[in-house]
């Protein structure tokens, strides 16, 4: 009962956080030193055209009225229309967000699949050469600018070895070949049972996902190592070892079992971070994702798009945070 109450309290904080997010983004958008009308009418439009556009956007009204109108529309699911794409923001999000999510999901699978074993290995072999090598690999992940890694990856795997296809989400031969049902290209290809498109989509996905995963992997590996070192020094691990359990059983069942819950939080937050922070990777790999959409919209003061995209990123971040919180509370009996 106590746990359910805690979960209910956590869930109740979501709308308040979202309201705060919308309010802050809205205010930032309105005080930005960029005239939003410029994106619509351009630099050359005469004063009356500018004034008409300002009126159409409701920019002549007081800020609180503008915000109230926006909230009213938001309540009925109307995110407005993007100036830059001419589509409704909702349509844009349905197109751009799955592309980013597809990329981030594969990246987090790579990152966790490699980062966790590496972190465990580094902890078990603390101070050894293996630990040092893993530290260097992770350090590079933290310190190399992502565009350098992305371009180097393209030069090596695309331009030299021809192992990977070039930037983009798919080859132009397959453009529009499968119907966009979910806008996850791999899923749509599966649904259409078009194996050629699926193969092409997966091939295009691997390289940017791997680049993105490298940075997430470095973080996950370092955190895993730190958690494991803490766990391996625990009395229960010493007891397990004294009882004569195998090394693998001690490491994976007793030590790792105890840090798994904390790792869930790390992975959930890293995943959420990948969803919002893939803009450089998306730019270099010409990946039509939410990061690029948000950046272009922001630079053009396309405020409906900025607000809509920020809201989606915020909701996703909160959802993962909430999920991690819930899992943490459900899986670890010590957390009330």
């Amino acid at each position: 009962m106590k746990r359910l109450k805690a979960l209910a309290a956590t869930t109740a904080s979501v709308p308040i956080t979202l309201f705060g997010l919308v309010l802050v983004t809205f205010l930032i958008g309105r005080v930005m030193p960029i005239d939003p009308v410029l994106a619509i009418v351009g630099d050359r439009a005469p004063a009356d055209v500018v004034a008409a556009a300002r009126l159409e956007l409701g920019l002549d009204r007081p800020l609180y009225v503008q915000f109230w109108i926006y909230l009213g529309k938001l309540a009925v699911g109307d995110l407005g229309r993007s100036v830059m794409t001419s589509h409704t923001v909702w349509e844009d999000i349905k197109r751009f967000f799955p592309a980013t999510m597809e990329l981030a999901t594969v990246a987090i699978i790579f990152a966790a699949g490699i980062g966790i074993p590496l972190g465990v290995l580094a902890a078990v072999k603390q101070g050894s050469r293996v630990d040092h090598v893993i530290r260097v690999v992770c350090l590079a992940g933290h310190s190399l600018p992502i565009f350098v890694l992305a371009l180097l990856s393209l030069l090596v795997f695309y331009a030299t070895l021809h192992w990977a296809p070039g930037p983009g989400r798919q080859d132009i031969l397959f453009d529009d070949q499968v119907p966009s049902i979910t806008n996850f290209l791999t899923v749509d290809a599966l649904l259409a049972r078009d194996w050629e498109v699926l193969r092409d989509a997966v091939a295009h996905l691997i390289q940017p996902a791997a680049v993105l995963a490298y940075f997430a992997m470095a973080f996950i590996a370092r955190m895993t190592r730190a958690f494991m070192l803490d766990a391996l020094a625990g009395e229960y691990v010493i007891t397990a070892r004294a009882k004569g359990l195998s090394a693998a059983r001690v490491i994976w069942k007793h030590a790792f079992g105890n840090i798994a819950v904390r790792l869930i939080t790390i992975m959930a937050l890293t995943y959420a971070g990948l969803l919002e922070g893939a803009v450089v990777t998306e730019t270099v790999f010409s990946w039509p994702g939410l990061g690029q959409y948000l950046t272009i919209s922001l630079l053009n003061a396309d405020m409906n798009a900025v607000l809509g995209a920020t809201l989606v990123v915020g909701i996703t971040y909160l959802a993962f945070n909430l999920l991690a919180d819930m899992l943490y509370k459900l899986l670890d009996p010590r957390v009330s």
Partner: protein
Amino acid sequence: MISRRALMTVASATPFFSLAGEGWADTPKDTLVIGKQIDDIISLDPAEAFEFSGGEVDGNCYERLVVPNPAKPSEIIGELAESWTVSPDGLTFTFTMKTGLKFASGNPITAEDAAFSLQRMIKLNKSPAFIINQFGANKDNVGDMIKATGPNTLVFRIAEKMAPTFVLYCMSANCGSIVDKAVVLKNEVAGDLGSAWMKTNSAGSGPFTVRSWKASESVILDANPNSTIKAKPRRIFYKHIADPSAQQLQLQQGDIDMARDLLPDQLKAAQSNPAFKLSSAPQSYIMYLCLNQNVPNLAKPQVRQAIKWAIDYDGIQQNIVPTTYDVQQSFVPKGMMGAIADRPFKKDIAKAKALMAEAGLSGGFELVIDHYNAQPGADIAQAIQANLAEIGIKVTLQAGEQRQVITRYRARTHQSAILSWGIDYFDPNTNAETFCVNIDNADTARNKTLAWRNSWQDVDLSNRAIAAVKESDAKVREEMYASMQRDHHMRSPFALLLQATGWAVMRKNVEGFHLAGLGLRTAFDQAVKI
């Protein structure tokens, strides 16, 4: 910190990089794949599109009544118009349309379509509408001013006498594209004159039609079988590639046939690579330094001149933008009627210092220059900062995103700025008006020309610019612009610096394509891959 440019320059020096290797998948033979930054497109409707990429797409999907002659742009030829006459009072233009032409839909092209297209543009009153409504048309009177008087006869009556060349060049702008009335009205929603549908579709008679536009991703054009211009490629595929380095890589790998946004270093590498061929043409963009006349020191004529004499134009061009810009010191860009080749200024520090002393500012002063943070704006701003330091002007550079800088500029809150300006239509008035005319210097002025934005009023030049657009004799008109530019050099608060050069780098198997100069259509219909 490794810059992207430095990384790619090193990479271009490596042997593997200079080879155009086999691509992962070659582009289809009948499809021309163009790598380009196309995220500037906000609409493909010619009544709304006013951005570079949108204009290029429309140029391939629509035809206009008249266009500049590609072989001799100072001449106007008919595209959908067979001929035209101007009434003796200079107020009525009568166009006779070519017969037997069809839209992509198969519908015949009539004068009614032409009247509808121009009326629609005025009624929608989007960004480019001013190009035609400057002749007195508005949503209330446009039905009378522009009308079809027969199946092949269109009459355009203007409110005030203007130079016929001016009127015709304005009609050759992208917004003068003729749309298929039946198709547009079929897609009309809630009286929007088909505006929502036209943003992402086409209804023209050009050699291509829009198959799809995915913002920040791709534009696909298919050949129009009903066009009189028979397109050789079956399809044009614009692929949005934001990063020039990624464009270069994909061109080398054969995943694209043409790259449009390569940087100077990359162009240099491409020039010496036999796997590629290049096409270049002067573009309409002029880069300039402006001096706000609300700043007392900048209002002194000697200071304006001193700044113009302190700048190392050749050094900037040769060292920063050797391939992508040429020195240009006059407001009419090269390639347009009225352009002059004069280059009155070169770096002369002694002369500049003398002018500063004459202004009573031999000790210099402090100045803030706004500029775009993207290259080459930042490098050029630093070069000018160094140049002005030599005459005692201590410059603080203030970098910003393009729209941020323009917002400050339009609000006249800048001191000085380095900016670019491109033509709106292919007539010298487009730049003469903005660089010279400032009739109403109040904050509430309707036309916020560049002269207004810098609070500069020169009554003589304003009047001469207004007079030039009414001059019927093309030769006299050309001379008027030449003389205005020479006076502008000496009096204006604008130091004109550079004119952009556009480049297309193609794989060697692409033939039949040449990048168009300003005012002309960048046509892909004759491009083939051998």
